[in-house]
């Protein structure tokens, strides 16, 4: 029942209008501006759909989108596969009183600057970085491996971040499960493996889907990690967008590419909406 003692009609609108106005002015309006911009020609202005058709015609643009999707898919799958058992160990095997500390430690590097985090991986993966020096030192390899400026480096940087994020969300999910579910399953004769497969996993699946979606959205829109770790050998969409602004000041093309990127995320959202809704219910 949302009946209030106040009879004033103006008050509620006075409360919500500033936030709505801000959203309209600095989120919706920029979006419209971007839409208009994407339909104008960079040279000489005028209405055109060339910015969009360029994306579909030029295979190097296509390639960037395919790279983005591939990297994002790989990162999402690897991160979940690494984070789930880790979160499970933290939630089930670490004694209760140490759990908070264990979790805080597990996400500590979260709080390094996001630019610095990618840079740190560069230190590790560089030609004469920690890994190459260690491997050549013990004689496993003769020549340093090309680790930086590869897709492997981009994926490593991303996975590092998302393992922390997903550990947090999956841990929270596992802790929310009432222990009586597991007791009930055990009571009804299910062993630990079957309890996990038939009870724990299905109940945490909605949370995993939300985490996966979050990973997808954050990963596909990120510029820093691929730029620092992947370099320019293999461009992804955000790099392509930034390149249009940085090198050529081509706002219309950058706008068109941004809108295409957003369209892809929206399609992914609609595809996942079914699972994301389960969580909300």
């Amino acid at each position, binding site marked *: 029942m949302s009946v209030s003692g106040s009879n004033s009609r103006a008050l509620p609108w006075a409360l919500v209008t500033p936030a709505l106005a801000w959203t309209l002015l600095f989120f919706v309006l920029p979006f419209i501006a971007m839409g208009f911009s994407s339909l104008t020609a960079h040279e000489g202005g005028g209405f055109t759909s060339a910015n969009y058709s360029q994306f579909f015609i030029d295979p190097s643009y296509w390639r960037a989108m395919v790279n983005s999707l591939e990297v994002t898919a790989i990162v999402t799958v690897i991160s979940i596969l690494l984070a789930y058992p880790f979160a499970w*160990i933290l939630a089930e095997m670490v004694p209760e009183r140490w759990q908070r500390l264990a979790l805080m430690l597990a996400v500590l590097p979260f709080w390094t600057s996001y630019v610095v985090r990618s840079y740190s991986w560069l230190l590790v993966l560089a030609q004469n970085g920690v890994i190459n020096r260690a491997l050549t030192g013990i004689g496993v390899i003769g020549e340093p491996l090309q680790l930086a400026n590869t897709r492997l480096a981009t994926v490593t940087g991303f996975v590092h971040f998302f393992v922390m994020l997903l550990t947090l969300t999956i841990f929270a999910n596992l802790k929310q499960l009432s222990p009586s579910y597991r007791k009930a399953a055990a009571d009804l004769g299910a062993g630990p493996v079957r309890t996990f497969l038939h009870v724990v996993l299905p109940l945490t699946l909605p949370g995993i889907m939300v985490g996966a979606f979050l990973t997808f959205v954050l990963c596909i829109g990120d510029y820093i990690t691929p730029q620092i770790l992947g370099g320019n050998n293999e461009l992804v969409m955000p790099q392509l967008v930034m390149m249009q602004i940085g090198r050529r000041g081509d706002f219309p093309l950058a706008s068109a590419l941004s809108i295409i990127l957003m369209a892809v995320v929206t399609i992914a959202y609609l595809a996942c909406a079914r699972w994301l809704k389960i969580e909300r219910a």
Partner: protein
Amino acid sequence: MRAIVRLAAWLYAIAIYGFIFLPVVVLVLFSLQATSFPIPPFTGPSLRWYQAVLSDARLTSALVNSLLVAVLSSLASVTLGFLSAWGFARFVLPGSAFLRGLITLPLTVSYLIIGMGLLVLFNWAGVPKSLVAAGIGHVVINLPLCFAIIYSQMGDHQINIERAARDLGAAEWKVLLMITVPVMAPAIFAGFFLSMTFSWDEFVISFLLTRFETTLPVEIWNLLRSGLNPKTNAVGSLVFAVSIVLVVFFELTLLRRKPA
């Protein structure tokens, strides 16, 4: 068999911890490097790169800029977020679900795209690039977060508490200041803290919307162009240390404020 499984699990956990900490340890270790390259072998410890950072006017002013933008944009986000959450939670407004969806919509859009949109708009409207422009962008990303956190905490119990205050004769603004804000303080605090950390660490919007005066992440990015440099390690380690202190501080204060 059981023992083997347990051992494997512990080894796995240690491996993940190792993976998570590897870059941070390398970062901090080589910030203490005595020579000019942050690569093995370790030649330190030395604090020369920290001195270099603290005497670099560009970096220190970027740090001040970052703090200013973070504090002010977070204050704006939490204020707008709180007022709108209160309005939507307490009053029946036409189209409420739609409007709430609109406010939270920026959460699902990449920072890059939000930054692009503002860049195109400001460019078109003739608004120059500045820290204010970046701050506006930071409110766009943090307002929905503050709104969502505070709105989710405004339950029926809070509604009854406010009703009780009105029933006992409190005017609307007194209900707000004496009851709602103190009772919602943990959620308001959480919103502010999260906004601070996101703004403090945000790169792409600041990169697109600032020019001469800029924020720390953008300045660090500029440093990166000179390749691997222990100075970058030092500034990164400093940022990390400040964040850890803040996190521990908030963790302790929030833990102490356990609600009934």
